[in-house]
C-alpha cells in the first residue's frame, strides 16, 4: 500500500477534492448564515436602538433664547432694555490648553481672577460638548479689535453678540424693578428639568424685584432648533425649528417722574417712600434710599463693588420699602381712632383730660405724652390733629388688644400686602396668641397701651403703612398694591382684599381730622400742608429707635445720629376724591412733620398738579431718553431681534 501511494491516482484525487469542496460549501453556508444572523440582529432586532443612536449622533437640539420682555413705566418710558453686548467665550473642545489660552487672553483684554473662577465654575456644570462658555462680558470696541487681530492664535475663542439687560434709569428702580443676574449654583441645583432646559443658553435670571416676580412672563418661551451636525460638530442644516415666544413687555403703575421726585425729596437721607394710586392700588412710586446701580449685577458684579455695597453702613442693598420694619408710631392713630369709633369704644364727642401722661390704676408707671405739658382736654379729632398720645393710650386700654388686633388687621397690618414684588416682610401686628407663642409671656395691659400709639411690639413696613392709608383713603376698600399695570396688552384688574365696614360718619370724621393735621392752625403737619391748591389728609409719626427709660429726658443732641427718631408720615390727597396715598419714612429724620411730611407734599404736588401725567397718554417709545449715555448707541428693535437669533446659534 505504501508503494501504491507514490503513484498519482487521479480518480481518488478528484473525489477527495470534490468531498472537500462539499465540506467547505457547508462551512461557507454556515458562516454566511452566521453573518446574516448578525446583520439581522443589528438591522432588524435591534434596529430601534441603533436608529436612536444614529439620530443622537447627528441631531443636536439647540435652544433659541427668547427676547426678554421690556419694562416700561406708566408713561411708556423704557426702564429695562435689552442691549447688544459683546461676550468673549471659549469652546473648550477646540482648545488645547485652557490655561494657556486664558493667559494669552489676559495679555489682550482685562480678565480678572473672578472672571476665570466663574468660567471654570460654568465649565463644571452640565453643558453640551462644543457649547461656548462665557469668560468676559461687555467687551469694548478696542478689546474686540485686539482679539480679532490675534484670532490666528486663539483657537476656540469666540466673540459673540448677546443681548444683555440694561437699566437706563440706573439706581432709580434698583429695588422695585430689580435686576437679572447670573444664575448661581444654588439656583441651578434647585431647577427642575424644564428650567434647566430653559436657562441652558440664557445664563441669567431675575434676581430681585419685578425681574424676579415676573420672571416667567418676561422670559417667554424657549424655542428649539434641531440641527444636523457632522462628527466634528459642524452644523450642516436645520431640520426643524420651533421659534421662541418672546417675553411679554410689562407696563408699570410706577411713574418715573414721580419716582425721581421722591428720590430727590429724600435726598441723601436713608428712608423709603411708597406712593399708591388710591383707585387701583397701583404703586406710583416705591423708593428705598440709598440705592445702587442694578447694571452692576447683570453680568456679574466684582467682589470689590459687591463688598462696598454690602459693607456700607447705609445698607443700600436692603429694600427698606418692603423689608424695613419700623414702629408705625403715630401714623396708626387715624386707624385707631376709627377703630374706637367703629367699635363704639368712644364717640366723636368723647373727651379726656391729657395731663401729659397716662397711668393705669394700681400701677406707678407713667405713659408719657410726647408733649410733656399735655394737650388738655382732647377728643378724637384733636387727638389726631395734635397727635395726643394720652388719648390713644386710653383708647387702646379701653378697646383691648383683641379688638385692636382684629381692626388693624383689616388694614393689612401684620400681613404681607401681597404686592407683586418678592421678599416682602409681614411686619408685626401683635396679639395675645402671638406673644404667648413667641415670647411665652401673657399679654400685659402695658403692651396694649404702647400698641395704641404704634410703639411696643408693632412693626410695619413702609409699604404696609401705604396700604393702610390707601385703605383709609378708599373708605375701607382694602386693595392689594400692584406694581405692574399691564402684561403685554392685558390690563391687570385691581384686587380687593377686604372691605372694612365702618359707618360713613366716622370715615368723614377721620378724614376731617386728617385734613386738619395738614391744614388746621394746630395741625402737626400744617407747614407741609400750607399754601396748597387742593386739600390733603395726613398723619405724622415719630418712632423711637431706642426706648426711653422712665424719668429719662429724651435728648436728641446726646444721641448719635443713628439713634435719632425715625420720621414718618402717611397721607392722601385730594381730600374729597383721593387719588394718591403716600407713606414716607426717613430714618433718624427726627420729626415726622418736619422731615417726612414735606416729602409727601412734594409727591402730592407732583402727582396732582402735573398736567400731562394722568390724562395724557404717551405712546410707548422703544429707544429712549437721556437717562443713560449708552442710549444713544442703542440699536433698533429689529437689529436686536437679529442679534438674538444670531446669538442662539
Amino acid at each position: 500500500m505504501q508503494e501504491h501511494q507514490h503513484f498519482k491516482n487521479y480518480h481518488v484525487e478528484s473525489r477527495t477534492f470534490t468531498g472537500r469542496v462539499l465540506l467547505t460549501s457547508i462551512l461557507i453556508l454556515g458562516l454566511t448564515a452566521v453573518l446574516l444572523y448578525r446583520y439581522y440582529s443589528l438591522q432588524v432586532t435591534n434596529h430601534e436602538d441603533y436608529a436612536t443612536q444614529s439620530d443622537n449622533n447627528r441631531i443636536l437640539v439647540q435652544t433659541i433664547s427668547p427676547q426678554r420682555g421690556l419694562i416700561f413705566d406708566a408713561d411708556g418710558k423704557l426702564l429695562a432694555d435689552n442691549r447688544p453686548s459683546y461676550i468673549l467665550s471659549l469652546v473648550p473642545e477646540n482648545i488645547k490648553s485652557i490655561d494657556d489660552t486664558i493667559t494669552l487672553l489676559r495679555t489682550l483684554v482685562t480678565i480678572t481672577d473672578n472672571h476665570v473662577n466663574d468660567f471654570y465654575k460654568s465649565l463644571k456644570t452640565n453643558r453640551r460638548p462644543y457649547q461656548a462658555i462665557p469668560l468676559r462680558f461687555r467687551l469694548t470696541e478696542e478689546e474686540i479689535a485686539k482679539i480679532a487681530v490675534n484670532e490666528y492664535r486663539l483657537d476656540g475663542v469666540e466673540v459673540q453678540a448677546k443681548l444683555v439687560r440694561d437699566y437706563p434709569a440706573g439706581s432709580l428702580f434698583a429695588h422695585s424693578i430689580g435686576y437679572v443676574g447670573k444664575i448661581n449654583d444654588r439656583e441651578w441645583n434647585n431647577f427642575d428639568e424644564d428650567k434647566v432646559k430653559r436657562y441652558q443658553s440664557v445664563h441669567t435670571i431675575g434676581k430681585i424685584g419685578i425681574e424676579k416676580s415676573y420672571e416667567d412672563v418676561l422670559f417667554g418661551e424657549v424655542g428649539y432648533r434641531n440641527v444636523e451636525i457632522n462628527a466634528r460638530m459642524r452644523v450642516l442644516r436645520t431640520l426643524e425649528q420651533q421659534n421662541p415666544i418672546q417675553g411679554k413687555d410689562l407696563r408699570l403703575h410706577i411713574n418715573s417722574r414721580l419716582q425721581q421726585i421722591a428720590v430727590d425729596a429724600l435726598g441723601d437721607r436713608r428712608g423709603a417712600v411708597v406712593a399708591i394710586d388710591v383707585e387701583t392700588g397701583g404703586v406710583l412710586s416705591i423708593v428705598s434710599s440709598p440705592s445702587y446701580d442694578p447694571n452692576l449685577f447683570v453680568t456679574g458684579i466684582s467682589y470689590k463693588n459687591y463688598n462696598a455695597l454690602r459693607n456700607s453702613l447705609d445698607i443700600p442693598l436692603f429694600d427698606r420699602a418692603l423689608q424695613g420694619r419700623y414702629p408705625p408710631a403715630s401714623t396708626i392713630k387715624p386707624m385707631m381712632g376709627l377703630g374706637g369709633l367703629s367699635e363704639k369704644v368712644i364717640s366723636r364727642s368723647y373727651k379726656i383730660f391729657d395731663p401729659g401722661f397716662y397711668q393705669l390704676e394700681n400701677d406707678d408707671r407713667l405713659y408719657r405724652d410726647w408733649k410733656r405739658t399735655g394737650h388738655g382736654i382732647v377728643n378724637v379729632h384733636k387727638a389726631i390733629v395734635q397727635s395726643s398720645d394720652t388719648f390713644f393710650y386710653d383708647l387702646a386700654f379701653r378697646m383691648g388688644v383683641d379688638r385692636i388686633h382684629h381692626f388693624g388687621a383689616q388694614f393689612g397690618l401684620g400681613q404681607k400686602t401681597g404686592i407683586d414684588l418678592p421678599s416682602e416682610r409681614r411686619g408685626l401686628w401683635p396679639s395675645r396668641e402671638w406673644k404667648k407663642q413667641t415670647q411665652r409671656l401673657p399679654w400685659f395691659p402695658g403692651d396694649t397701651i404702647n400698641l395704641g400709639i404704634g410703639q411696643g411690639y408693632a412693626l410695619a413696613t413702609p409699604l404696609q403703612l401705604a396700604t393702610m392709608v390707601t385703605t383709609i383713603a378708599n373708605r375701607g376698600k382694602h386693595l392689594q398694591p400692584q406694581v405692574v399695570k399691564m402684561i403685554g396688552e392685558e390690563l391687570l384688574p385691581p384686587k380687593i382684599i377686604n372691605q372694612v365696614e365702618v359707618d360713613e360718619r366716622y370715615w368723614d370724621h377721620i378724614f376731617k381730622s386728617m385734613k386738619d393735621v395738614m391744614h388746621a392752625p394746630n395741625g402737626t403737619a400744617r407747614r407741609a400742608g400750607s399754601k396748597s391748591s387742593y386739600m390733603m389728609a395726613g398723619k405724622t409719626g415719630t418712632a423711637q429707635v431706642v426706648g426711653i427709660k422712665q424719668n429719662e429726658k429724651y435728648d436728641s443732641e446726646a444721641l448719635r445720629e443713628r439713634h435719632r427718631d425715625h420720621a414718618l408720615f402717611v397721607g392722601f390727597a385730594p381730600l374729597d376724591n383721593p387719588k394718591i396715598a403716600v407713606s414716607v419714612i426717613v430714618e433718624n429724620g427726627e420729626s415726622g412733620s418736619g422731615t417726612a411730611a414735606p416729602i409727601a407734599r412734594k409727591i402730592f404736588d407732583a402727582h396732582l398738579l402735573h398736567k400731562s401725567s394722568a390724562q395724557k397718554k404717551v405712546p410707548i417709545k422703544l429707544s429712549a431718553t437721556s437717562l443713560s449715555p449708552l442710549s444713544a448707541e442703542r440699536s433698533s428693535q429689529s437689529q436686536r431681534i437679529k442679534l438674538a437669533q444670531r446669538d442662539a446659534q
Partner: protein
Amino acid sequence: MLAYNRQDFIRRMPEASHDLRRRRSFWRVVHIDPILLLLLLALTTFGLVVLYSASEGNNSLIKRQAVFFTIAYIGMFTVAQIRLDYFSRWSVLFYLGALGLLVLVLFFGVGAKGAQRWLSLGSIRFQPSEMMKLAMPIAIAAYLSKKTLPPRFKHVFWSLILVAVPTVLIVKQPDLGTSILVAISGLVVLFYAGLRWRYILSAAVLLVASIWPMWHYVLHDYQRRRVLTLFDPEADKLGAGWNIIQSKTAIGSGGIDGKGWLDGTQSHLDFLPESHTDFIIAVLAEEFGFIGVLGLVVLYLLIIARGLFIAINAQDSFRRLLAGSITLTFFVYVFVNVGMVSGLLPVVGVPLPLVSLGGTSLVTLMLGFGLLMGISTEPPRITHNR
C-alpha cells in the same frame, strides 16, 4: 504512466465529449465564463453605486476607481487567455519574485500609520503582499499537484514553509489582514489537496495552544487593542471602539430597507470612519438596509458557487487546487470584512472584495478570477502531465 493516462482518459470520456460539443461556443473562444462575468459585473456595478455614496459623490474618486476596474477587467481577460500550464511551469518564479518584492518592502517600503506596505515605482504604488495572494496558491498548487495526493508529511512540511515565509514577512510590515489572507490562500490548497484529518486536528490543537504566546509575543499593541475592542467596544468609545460603535450604529440604523441611497447619515456626516474603504459595507447596510446586505451576500455566494463549480470540473489537480483556493480565499475575504465591520471579528485591514476603494486588491482579485475563467474555458486535453 501510460496506464494512468488511459485510466484518466476513460474517466473523462463523457465529459470530453461534452466539451467537444461546446468547443465552438463563443465564450470558449474568448476564454470567458459568461456566468462568472455576469456576476462580477453585477457586483462591481453595485460596488460603484455604494462607493459613489460613500465618497460623497466625489466624481474624480469614482472615475479613478472605474479606471481601476477597467484595468482589472483587462487584466482578468488577459490572464484568462494564458494556458494554465504556463502558471504551473513558472510558479516558482512567480513565488520567488513576489517574495523578493516582499523583502524589498521591508527595506524600501513606504506607507502610513507605522506600517510599510507599499513599493513605490515612480508614480505607481503597489502592495507586493497582494501579488503573493496569487503567487502563493499557484506555487503550492503546482508543487502539490506534482506529488501524490493526499500529500505526504514531507510535502506538507515544505508547503507550510512556503506559506510561512511570506506570511511572516507580511506580518512584519505589519499587515495582519493581508497576512491572514495570504496564509489562508496557501493553506486552503493543502486542505483541498486532501490533507489528512490527523494533520488538521493536530494543527487545530497547535493553534489553540499558540494563542497565548501569539498574544504576548507576536501581536502588536494596536492589534491586541483591536481584539479587546471587539469584546468591549464601549471601553474605549472615542479611540479604538469608535469605528466599531459607529459602524454598528450605521448598520443597525439602516433597518430592513435602509435610509436610501445617498441618505446614510452615519457615513455622510463622517461619523463612520473608513467609509469608502474597509467599512464600506456599513454604508451599504445603512443605505440599503438588510435587503441590500442580503443581496450582496447572495451575489458573493453565487460567485463562490460558480468558482467551486469551476474547480470541481477542472481538468487536473493543479487547476482544481488553484480554482478552489482562489474561490475559498475570496470567501474568507468577504467573511472577514463583513464580520469585522459588524463587530463579529476583530478589525483587521481587509477590504470588502470588489467593492471597497483601492486598486491593488481589486486587480489581484480580478486576476484570480481571470485564472478561474481560464480554468473554466480551457479546451480539454486528451493527454497531459507529459
